[in-house]
C-alpha cells in the first residue's frame, strides 16, 4: 500500500513568507489608519503612532520580517499624510512626530527581527524533533531486520515516508555486478534504474558521494572499508541543500542503513567463519582418525604378512598361525571401521533409508550379544527385559549396530570381567533401553562431548578407536526420532539411556495366541 508521505509542512518559513505575509504587511497600516481616523481628535500623535506600532508588531509576530518592514515603511507615509501636521500632506512639521516615526520604524525592525529568530528556532527545534523521530523509527525498523532483503524493504519504505521519493537498494551479486533485487518490489520501490550508473558509483569508492543521471540519484552506502550497496533514488521535490541541516539529516539516514548492512555482513562473516572452523576441525579429526585407525591395522597386517612371506620356512607352525590370526583380526577390525565410517557418512548425508518394521528389542539385544561373544569373554551380561515389552518400529540392522557400539564401548572402558547391564522399560511415550557398566564412568563434563564425531576419550591408545561409535549411535537413534544420553551413576559407572518413540503395534487378528497346547 502506498501511504502518503508525511513531509514536514514548512509554509511558515521566515525567509519566504509568501503573499499572505506581504498582503497583511500592506493591509495592516491601512487598517490602523481607518480605525484611528474617527478618533484623531481624541488621541494625541504619540498614541496614534503607538497604534501603528502595534500593527507592525502584529505583522512581525505573525509573518516574516520583510512583511513587518513593509508595514512599518507604509505606516510612515500614512501617518504623515493623515495625522501629522500639516494633515493631507506628506510633510511633517513637528519634530516630535519625526522622532516618533523614526523610533517606530526602528522598534518595528528590532521586534520583527527578534520575533523572526524566536520563530526560526522554534521551527528548527520542531524540525529536529521530527527528524530525530524519523531516525528513531528507522533504526528500530532496521534493528528488527535480519537480512539484506528486510533491510532493503525498511529502507525503501522509510525513504518514501520521509522524503517522498521512490528508491531501491541495489546489491552486488557474487561477481561484484549490481543486480536489481529479485524480491517482490514495494509499491514505492523505484523501478527504473540504470545498473551501469549504479555500477559506476559502486566501484568508485569514496570518490563520488552521489551521481545524478536522468533524474535518479545514486548514493553509495559505505562501511568503513567498502561500498555495501547503492541506493538509487528519485530526485527529491526540493533539493537537499535547499534547507539547512536537511542534507546532513539525509546523510544520517543513509549511514544508519549502511551501518545495518555492515552489521549483517559482519554477522554473516562471523557465522561462516565459525562454520568453516568447525568443518576444518572435523576434517582434521577425520584425517587423523583415519590415518591412525586405518594405518594401525594396515601396519600390523603388512607386518604379519611380510613375516609369513619371509620366514615361512624358519618359523614354527604356531608362529605362522599367530601371524595368520593377526592378519585376520586386524582385517576384521578394518572392515568394522569402514562399515562405521560409511554408515556415519550415509546417515549424516541423509542418504540412508530406514528399513523400519516391528521388532522385538529382545531379539536385537540377543543378536548384538551373539555378535560380541568373542569380545565379551567371561564378562557377565545381565539382561532385564520385561516380557510385556511392546514391539518397536525400528530398522533392526541399524539398531543392532547402535547397541553393538554401546556394548563395545562398555567393554573398552571398563575393567575386564566387570559386568554389563542391559535393561528395557516401557515409559509413557517411549521404550527406554539402558546399557550400563561398572567402571570409572564418563569424565565429568564429557557426557555430551563423547557423542561428537571423531571424539575419543583415548585417541592415543590402540583401543581408543576412531571416535565414531557413539556418534553413530546418536545418529541412528535420532534417525528413529529417539534420543540418547549418557549419565554417570555415582560409584558405579556409566549408563546410556536410549529412548525410542512408543507406537502402537497393529493388533494380531488371530485368536490363537498360544493358549492351546499341542
Amino acid at each position: 500500500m502506498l501511504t502518503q508521505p508525511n513531509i514536514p509542512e514548512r509554509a511558515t518559513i521566515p525567509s519566504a513568507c509568501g503573499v499572505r505575509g506581504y498582503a497583511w504587511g500592506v493591509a495592516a497600516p491601512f487598517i490602523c489608519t481607518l480605525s484611528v481616523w474617527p478618533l484623531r481628535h481624541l488621541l494625541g500623535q504619540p498614541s496614534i503612532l503607538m497604534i501603528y506600532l502595534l500593527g507592525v508588531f502584529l505583522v512581525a509576530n505573525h509573518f516574516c520580517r520583510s512583511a513587518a518592514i513593509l508595514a512599518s515603511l507604509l505606516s510612515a507615509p500614512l501617518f504623515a499624510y493623515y495625522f501629522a501636521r500639516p494633515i493631507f500632506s506628506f510633510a511633517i512639521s513637528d519634530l516630535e512626530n519625526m522622532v516618533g516615526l523614526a523610533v517606530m520604524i526602528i522598534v518595528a525592525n528590532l521586534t520583527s527581527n527578534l520575533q523572526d529568530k524566536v520563530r526560526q528556532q522554534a521551527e528548527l527545534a520542531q524540525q529536529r524533533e521530527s527528524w530525530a523521530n524519523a531516525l528513531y523509527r528507522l533504526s528500530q525498523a532496521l534493528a528488527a531486520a535480519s537480512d539484506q532483503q528486510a533491510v532493503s524493504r525498511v529502507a525503501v519504505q522509510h525513504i518514501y515516508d520521509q522524503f517522498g521519493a521512490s528508491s531501491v537498494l541495489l546489491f552486488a551479486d557474487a561477481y561484484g555486478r549490481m543486480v536489481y533485487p529479485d524480491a517482490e518490489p514495494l509499491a514505492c520501490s523505484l523501478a527504473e534504474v540504470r545498473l551501469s550508473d549504479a555500477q559506476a558509483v559502486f566501484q568508485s569508492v569514496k570518490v563520488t558521494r552521489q551521481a545524478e543521471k536522468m533524474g535518479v540519484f545514486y548514493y553509495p552506502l559505505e562501511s568503513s572499508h567498502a561500498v555495501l550497496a547503492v541506493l538509487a533514488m528519485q530526485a527529491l521535490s526540493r533539493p537537499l541543500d535547499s534547507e539547512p541541516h536537511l542534507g546532513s539529516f539525509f546523510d544520517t539516514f543513509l549511514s544508519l542503513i549502511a551501518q545495518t548492512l555492515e552489521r549483517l555482513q559482519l554477522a554473516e562473516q562471523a557465522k561462516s567463519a565459525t562454520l568453516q572452523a568447525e568443518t576444518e576441525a572435523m576434517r582434521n579429526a577425520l584425517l587423523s582418525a583415519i590415518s591412525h585407525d586405518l594405518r594401525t591395522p594396515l601396519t600390523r597386517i603388512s607386518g604379519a604378512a611380510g613375516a609369513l612371506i619371509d620366514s615361512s620356512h624358519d618359523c614354527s607352525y604356531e608362529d605362522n598361525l599367530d601371524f595368520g590370526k593377526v592378519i585376520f583380526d586386524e582385517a576384521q577390525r578394518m572392515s568394522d571401521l569402514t562399515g562405521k565410517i560409511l554408515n556415519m557418512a550415509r546417515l549424516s548425508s541423509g542418504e540412508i533409508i530406514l528399513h523400519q518394521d516391528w521388532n522385538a528389542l529382545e531379539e536385537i539385544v540377543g543378536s548384538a550379544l551373539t555378535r560380541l561373544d568373542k569380545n565379551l569373554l567371561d564378562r557377565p551380561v545381565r539382561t532385564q527385559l520385561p516380557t510385556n515389552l511392546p514391539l518397536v518400529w525400528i530398522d533392526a540392522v541399524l539398531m543392532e549396530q547402535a547397541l553393538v557400539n554401546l556394548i563395545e564401548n562398555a567393554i573398552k572402558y571398563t575393567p575386564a570381567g566387570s559386568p554389563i547391564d542391559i535393561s528395557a522399560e516401557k515409559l509413557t511415550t517411549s521404550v527406554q533401553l539402558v546399557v550400563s557398566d561398572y567402571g570409572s564412568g564418563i569424565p565429568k563434563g564429557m557426557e555430551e562431548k563423547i557423542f561428537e564425531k571423531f571424539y575419543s576419550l583415548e585417541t592415543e591408545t590402540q583401543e581408543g578407536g576412531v571416535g565414531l561409535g557413539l556418534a553413530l549411535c546418536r545418529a541412528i537413534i535420532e534417525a528413529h526420532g529417539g534420543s540418547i544420553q549418557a549419565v554417570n551413576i555415582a560409584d558405579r559407572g556409566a549408563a546410556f539411556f536410549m529412548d525410542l518413540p512408543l507406537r502402537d503395534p497393529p493388533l494380531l487378528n488371530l485368536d490363537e495366541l498360544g493358549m492351546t497346547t499341542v
Partner: protein
Amino acid sequence: MNETAALILLIEDDEQTRRFLKGSLSHKGWRIIEADNGKAGLAMIKNHNPDLVILDLGLPDMDGISVTKRLRQLSEIPVLILSARSQEQNKIMALDAGADDYLTKPFGSGELHARLQALLRRTRRTMPVSEVFVTGLLKVDLAQRKVFIADNEVRITPIEFRLLSILIRQAGLVVTHRQMLKEVWGAEHINDQHYLRIYMGQLRHKLEINPARPRYLMTDVGVGYRLAIDDVVTELAQ
C-alpha cells in the same frame, strides 16, 4: 566321511577371493570347480551337477537374484550367498528367491566351513518324519509333536510348533521372515513381521534359559531366524 567327496561350484568374479576360497576348501578335502560369471556358472551346474554352489552377489554379468532364480529352475542344490555389507537388501531377495544361506564379507574360513557343512547336511540327511531332532538340551520329537528341554516336556502351541519345525528342517541355516510368514500364515501375511516377533518371542521364552541371550533360536537381524545346532556352534567358535 562322505562330505569329503562333495563337489562345490564357486561362482565369484574376483580372482584373489576365488584363489583363497579354493585353497581353503581343497585343504578341507572338498573338490572345487570355478566360474567367474553367472552364465558360465549356470552352464557348469548343468554339466557337472555339483553338490553345492557358492554364489557371489556382485557378479559382472547377472545380479545374484536372477542367478538364484535361474539356478532354482535347474536344480534343488544348496546355494550359499556371499554378500558385501552394502548388499543387505539384495541378500534378502536372493534368500527369498531360493538361496539357502549367506555369509557377509569379510568372513573367516571357520565360518565358511560351518555353513557348508550345515548346507550339505540338509541335503544328505533329508529328515524322516519320525525322526527326533536333538541339539544341546533341546529335543524335538517331530512325529509325536513334542518338545523337551533337558527331558522335561515344554507345552507349545501348534503355531509355535510349526515355526520350530521349519527351523529344524533348515537347522543351522537362516530362514527369512518372509519364508516363515508365508509357510505358517500364508502368502497374504508375508509383510506382517509383528506376527513372527510375537510368536518367536513366546517360543524363545519357552525354550531358552535366557531369552535375551538365546542358545538355540538365533536372530539374524534384518534377515530372519536360525536354529543353532551343536557342531555349527563349535565350528563357529574356532
